[in-house]
């Protein structure tokens, strides 16, 4: 609802007192608003400053932790470096100590059936456990039965020949310590 204020007179007079009151009220309201705004701004700034301080503390702490982490990592690396050589030597010793000719020969004994003849055997004291041998057999079936026994040990067959009614072949396979 709009107020109807009808006055045709050209020479109107302003109510100075009412104007002063209203202008004063407006100025007061403006001041109050400005004061409120300033107070809010100051409070916000204080909060920001507090949060900034906390953030810098957190950042410092995180830097310290990161530096400690780097230092520890360097220590670990140096320890690793120092120990890796010793570890390799120890592993070599362990491998050497664990190597068993008897066990390998025992395995060969179980694999060899009648009709097979071991002509040559080479075996080294190494972790890989490479074994090479030359075998001769009366029948092809005997030879195949040997192949079947040695297939799980990465068997390589080479130079299979037949001469004078016998079959001869060179075999190479791996018997690692773990498979014994």
């Amino acid at each position: 609802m709009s107020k109807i204020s009808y006055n045709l007179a050209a020479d109107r007079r302003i109510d100075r007192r009412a104007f002063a009151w209203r202008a004063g009220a407006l100025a007061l309201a403006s001041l109050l608003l400005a004061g409120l705004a300033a107070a809010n701004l100051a409070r916000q700034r204080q909060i920001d400053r507090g949060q900034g301080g906390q953030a810098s503390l957190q950042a410092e702490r995180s830097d310290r932790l990161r530096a400690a982490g780097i230092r520890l990592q360097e220590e670990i690396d140096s320890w690793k470096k120092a120990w890796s050589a010793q570890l390799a030597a120890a592993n070599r010793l362990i491998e050497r100590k664990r190597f068993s000719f008897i066990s390998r020969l025992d395995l060969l004994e179980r694999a060899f059936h009648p009709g097979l003849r071991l002509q040559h055997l080479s075996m080294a004291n190494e972790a890989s456990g490479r074994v090479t041998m030359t075998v001769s057999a009366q029948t092809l079936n005997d030879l195949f039965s040997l192949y079947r026994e040695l297939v799980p040990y990465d068997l390589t067959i080479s130079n299979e020949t037949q001469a004078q009614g016998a079959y001869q072949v060179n075999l190479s396979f791996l018997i690692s310590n773990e498979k014994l």
Partner: protein
Amino acid sequence: MGLTAFFLPERLPRQVVYAGDRHAEVVSLSRGRITGRRRLEGVALAEALADGGLGWAEVMAELRPVETGIVFSASPFIYNLFDFDRLPWSNKACGELVAWRLQKIFPGDLAAYDHRFFRLDRKRVLSILAPRSLRETAEARFREKGVPLTFIGSSTLTLLRRMQAARPAPDFFIESDGPACTLLFQNRRTPIYIRTFRGSSPADAVEETLKTVAFVRGQYGIEPRRYWLIDHRDSAAALAAALASLAGQEYTRLQSGLGEAPHIPGSR
């Protein structure tokens, strides 16, 4: 306009001349209180201002050289309420729209009138035409006499403004000045209908009033019951009695609570 009116409020005059239909009244005010009233019978000030006729000298003799206002009864003014689909935001565009509507219904020369309008809501406008010569002559006469004329208003609009703010609010008011009567109806504190007429007797006036109420009831779908009766001739009792006798208990007269001269701006 609202902000200007709020921050630059007008100072109300210290004495007001009410220019009635066949009388004038000089009212002295002090801080809103009426300190003196002098009634001058047989003075038609609106006419006297125009032709310099009788009554002008009598009124001026009563005036002190202080800020003065003049309040005319409804007779010199032409009121119109216009409905639009939508009012433009700009006051200038709104004024042009109202003037265009006015030109369609007003037969006279609009240039001879001072046109003011008030937005009542988003769609309604109250338009007021006052003869330009009335204002110019009044200002010239007062200037000649050295009396500052700071207010030229309408008693009807003063009453309307007060009716809008009243609690409890009446549904309409009857402003009676001898044979001249003005009826103004409001709905939800917005004026919806204005009518001025002349009745030869209180019974005539009441009959016209009841007809108008019936029209408003049918046209606007409201039930006007409570009213103010503002009488400039001290015949309110007769009018109220006539209204009561014709309409029974259907209508309730509310006291405006605005003192003895509610049509005088700023009076209490």
